[in-house]
């Protein structure tokens, strides 16, 4: 029987995250070279905000689902008990205030908590997928993960970057020894890109022993980032490897089409007005760096030095606007989780990302101090079928 899906979203307009994640359930999406139509039907939708160009009403009229003014009603389809088989919480592109750390206070936790209320009241649960992450707050994210554990329902969160195409099609060997790792991110209004962090984590969690958690973080900005490179706080050869995978070098390449070794030609400080670096010390001794180089490139690249295998690198491909194929792979994972109840990757990945991001911003707020992060003792292993 076709499963019933409820959608809870901040705002549903053209080119919003909600549109990229919801429309495929209405019209189908490209999958393995076929046009795939999911065996799931959206029956109800809640939109927290209705900006200009709101799609919730026209889509509801055309595709025959109902809009409700509250989340509980959405999940109960107007009744008093849970009346759907799965819940998609798609946040982003709403207008919410930022906190003193610069984080948008997206009400994902509040949305989720209302879903949990319905589950408890109904004595029945359903899988929930949250886009892009659990919460801006690790404490809230932890509560969310614990609630799913307590009520025993599949909960997952994550963005498209870890599951998009990679150029090359690189997956780190399971159980590999990682000596050093560096991720390059760019773009967006946020000082640190959660997608970049998640993509990096999706690579590192495959190392020997699995994920052990993060012991300490430090975030620096501005010229200190370049000085840190000269001081050996991040590995220049990994930056060279990562940037060799970029298809979007800016500056001189825009002027006359020339290829550039951006890591070595001295152009970076000219191109990046606000560089940022996040340093992560994992509990098993691994060190990793996220460099935000907005202005130098427009894509996401990664490099790691592996024991015995040398340096491996790749680009996480963002497809061009309107970027619908870029979400297709994520939609596939969401659909499969809803249909099977099995999680395609661990929830702890998103939990880690929430905590790492928040602690980086805390470090920045405290003058780029190195912060111990005993709360980030998140340990997890990839299940065998994902290795």
């Amino acid at each position, binding site marked *: 029987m076709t499963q019933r899906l409820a959608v809870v979203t901040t705002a549903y307009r053209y080119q919003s995250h909600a549109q990229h994640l919801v429309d495929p359930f209405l019209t189908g999406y490209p999958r393995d070279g076929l*046009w795939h139509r999911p065996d799931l039907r959206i029956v109800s939708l809640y939109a927290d905000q209705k900006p200009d160009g709101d799609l919730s009403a026209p889509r509801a009229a055309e595709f025959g689902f109902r809009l409700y003014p509250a989340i509980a009603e959405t999940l109960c389809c107007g009744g008093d008990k849970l009346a759907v088989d799965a819940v998609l919480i798609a946040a982003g592109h709403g207008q919410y205030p930022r906190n003193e750390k610069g984080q948008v206070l997206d009400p994902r936790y509040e949305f989720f908590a209302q879903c949990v209320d319905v589950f408890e009241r109904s004595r029945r649960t359903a899988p929930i997928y949250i886009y892009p992450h659990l919460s801006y707050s690790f404490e809230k994210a932890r509560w969310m993960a614990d609630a799913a554990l307590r009520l025993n329902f599949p909960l997952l969160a994550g963005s498209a970057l870890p599951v998009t195409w990679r150029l090359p099609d690189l997956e780190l060997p399971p159980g590999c020894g990682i000596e050093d790792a560096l991720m390059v991110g760019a773009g967006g209004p946020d000082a640190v890109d959660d997608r970049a962090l998640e993509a990096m984590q999706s690579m590192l969690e495959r190392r020997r022993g699995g994920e052990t958690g993060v012991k300490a973080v430090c975030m620096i900005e501005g010229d200190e980032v370049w000085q840190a490179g000269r001081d050996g706080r991040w590995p220049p050869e990994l930056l060279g490897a990562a940037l060799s995978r970029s298809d979007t070098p800016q500056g001189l390449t825009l002027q006359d089409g020339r290829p550039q070794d951006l890591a070595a030609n001295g152009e970076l400080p000219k191109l990046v007005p606000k560089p940022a670096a996040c340093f992560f010390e994992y509990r098993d001794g691994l060190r990793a760096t996220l460099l935000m180089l907005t202005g130098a490139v427009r894509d996401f690249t990664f490099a790691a030095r592996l024991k015995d295998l040398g340096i491996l690198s790749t680009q996480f491909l963002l497809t061009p606007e309107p970027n619908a194929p870029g979400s297709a792979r994520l939609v596939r994972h969401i659909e499969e989780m809803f249909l099977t109840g099995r999680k395609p990757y661990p929830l702890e990945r998103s939990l880690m990302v929430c905590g790492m991001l928040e602690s980086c911003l805390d470090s920045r707020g405290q003058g780029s101090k190195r912060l111990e992060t005993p709360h980030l003792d998140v340990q997890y292993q990839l299940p065998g079928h994902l290795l």
Partner: protein
Amino acid sequence: MDLVALYVDQAGENDLSRGRARRFPSMRIYPTIAEALTLGTNQLAVDGVVLVGEHGNYPRNEKGQTRYPRHEFFEQIVRVFRDSRRSVPVFNDKHLSWNWDWARQMYDQSRELDFPLMAGSSLPVTWRIPSVEMPLGAVIREALCVCYGGVDSYDFHGLETIQCMVERRQGGETGVQWLQAYRGERFWQACQDGVWPRDLMTAALCRSHTLASGRPGFHALPSLEDMRRLVQDPVAYRYRHHDGLFSTMLLMDGLVRDFNFAASIDGRQDPFSTQLYLPMPPARTSLASFFSPLVHHMERMFLTGKPSYPVERTLLTTGLTAAGVESLFRNQARYETPHLAIAYHPRPESTFWRT
């Protein structure tokens, strides 16, 4: 490897050659091709030659072909080889010539003088999304590419996209017996009549990253009616290989801006499909880095003297490009191609960018 000599036929307002020569003093610009190859002496003085004969202002003929002077340049290169009694490897960007007879001469001269010649598009060697290779020895029933661009231009890239895949089929390439072009209303009629398989078209479109939506505000698979609205000047080249394989190259400007391949293969329920990744700057990238694999293979040939893939592939696609133009010129009549009975075997190893 040092780039030591450059000949540029036309240096327009946006010329880069002078600036590059200033930045790289080891590279000198010469006024003739012979001088570039001899470094101003009377003997061949280089170890390899790259011939890039497109862009620039050259006249068009009555069939709409731009008379890019690749054959003329090649003749001058070969004259130096003959005069010096020595040859070196040559890489020719894109097809050999717009003129089939000249292309054949170029190929024949490379055999006569026994120098390594490699040619073609970056499509066969760029990234593929997904990163898959046509299984060697596959029994292919039908092959199809949906791409974009114009006649005597990107049609060549679409043909190379198909050829680098189908040459790996059981028995290798056997050459092409005939080609028929479809354009405008005849294209839509053929599409409707199923002259080429619609399921392969859909499979190819499902690999595109630039598929125009059937409806504004959606990312929906376009119907045939949507496509009619989106594509102003559709062109198809459908051709039969000597072993019975049919291939179809579709130029659908307005529908996609990438190169997507699909084939039906014995033993597979769903079509084999992938995108050959050519993210054209400036919209999608800043750097045309899909040339990197092509440069890599040139470099390898210059260093080893061995082409990475057979030039017969591009000899055939050169002939197919000209045959497409010819069929269109003859009012979309089927064009018999006895001259394209070009049989060859591919190198078993993959040469596309995957690491």
